[in-house]
């Protein structure tokens, strides 16, 4: 019995802490030889002061006018996780994602939170459009998630800008990616309340809820 247990522990130890990919890209959006490459770069993770978090937080991007999509996520379980490229005090962790995509018109249209026993997303899609050109790398920002209460509750992302930090991370990890340029997202407010600017107007009530003060 003990031997089996020890073996199992060993196997888990060897197979465990399995590193997962932070991105998924549909085959139709994967760049090929003739199409050119545009990069979408950002960080997805858990907000440092968040008390309640989901196991998996995901941003979903699709090509406009089609169902082809790409996702970026932070998965956080003790035996399987995406890389932690950013780590702050408290609960703050973040995965840097670099998505090579075909150039074209895209939109950030939904998100997904996996709580283990349940999954939540925005029932209605939103449209946060952006245009990608070949040979450029776009910085979409830092998206950090938190949930309002434990269990199957509402979760949301706080968006912030850390271009300098993330440029340095990209240069170290993905030297083939060109210099980052900031992606303008004037439509981000339309994803209220699922995505808020961290330092934007009326964000303080969300921050106090996520940090457990309310």
């Amino acid at each position, binding site marked *: 019995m003990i031997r089996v247990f020890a073996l199992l522990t060993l196997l888990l130890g060897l197979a465990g802490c399995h590193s997962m990919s932070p991105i998924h890209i549909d085959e139709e959006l994967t760049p090929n030889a003739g199409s050119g490459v545009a990069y979408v770069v950002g960080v997805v993770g858990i907000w440092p002061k968040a008390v309640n978090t989901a196991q998996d937080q995901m941003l979903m991007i699709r090509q406009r006018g*089609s169902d082809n999509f790409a996702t970026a996520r932070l998965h956080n379980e003790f035996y399987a996780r995406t890389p932690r490229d950013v780590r702050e005090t408290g609960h703050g962790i973040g995965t840097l994602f670099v998505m090579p995509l075909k150039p074209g018109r895209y939109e950030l249209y939904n998100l997904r939170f996996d709580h283990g026993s349940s999954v939540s997303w925005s029932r209605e899609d939103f449209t946060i459009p952006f245009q990608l050109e070949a040979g450029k790398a776009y910085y979409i920002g830092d998206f950090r998630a938190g949930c309002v209460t434990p269990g199957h509750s509402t979760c949301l992302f706080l968006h912030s800008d850390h271009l300098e930090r993330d440029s340095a991370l990209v240069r170290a990890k993905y030297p083939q990616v060109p210099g980052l340029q900031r992606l303008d997202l004037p439509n981000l407010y339309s994803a209220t309340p699922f995505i808020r600017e961290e330092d934007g107007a009326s964000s303080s009530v969300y921050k106090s809820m996520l940090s457990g003060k309310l």
Partner: protein
Amino acid sequence: MRTKALFLWLTLLLGGCQATHTLKAPEVDYNQQLPAINVSVMGLPSWMLRDELRRRGTFNEVKAGRSADGYNVLVIANSDVGALQPQMFLSAFTLFLVPVPVSWDSTLIFSLSHGTEVLGVYTVHNQTKSWRGAFNASGGQFEHVQLIADTFIAQVLKDQPFRREALKNAAGI
């Protein structure tokens, strides 16, 4: 072998993967671009219709509600999408394994306006017959609404109300 084939045939028949619509899928180029619209819907789950309009990416943006200075689309629907269907109780007795025939019937009036001026009124009618059960949980409702949304987009692309307004404004100056 024969029983297996019969079983497969029966499953396919009862599964009723096929929904039939009175509307045909329009053949238009959805990559054309139209301005942003604000859509408010009465008589139909509004998120359903807006998501199907967003899916094509033809309108620059599809927002909820109304705006004072933008383009508004008021949708008045006479539809049974999202409504309770009593025959589903029959299916429920078999744990939804045996599907029941359902139909969806919608008439939607889309009124496109800019400020106080109405640019166009479009009517779309669709009737769908389908089977609903565990293998087809929505009973073809989403396809039904998708065809309606696509037909509306096709009608607007054909009618060109935005260009007509621009021409009229240009003539006024």
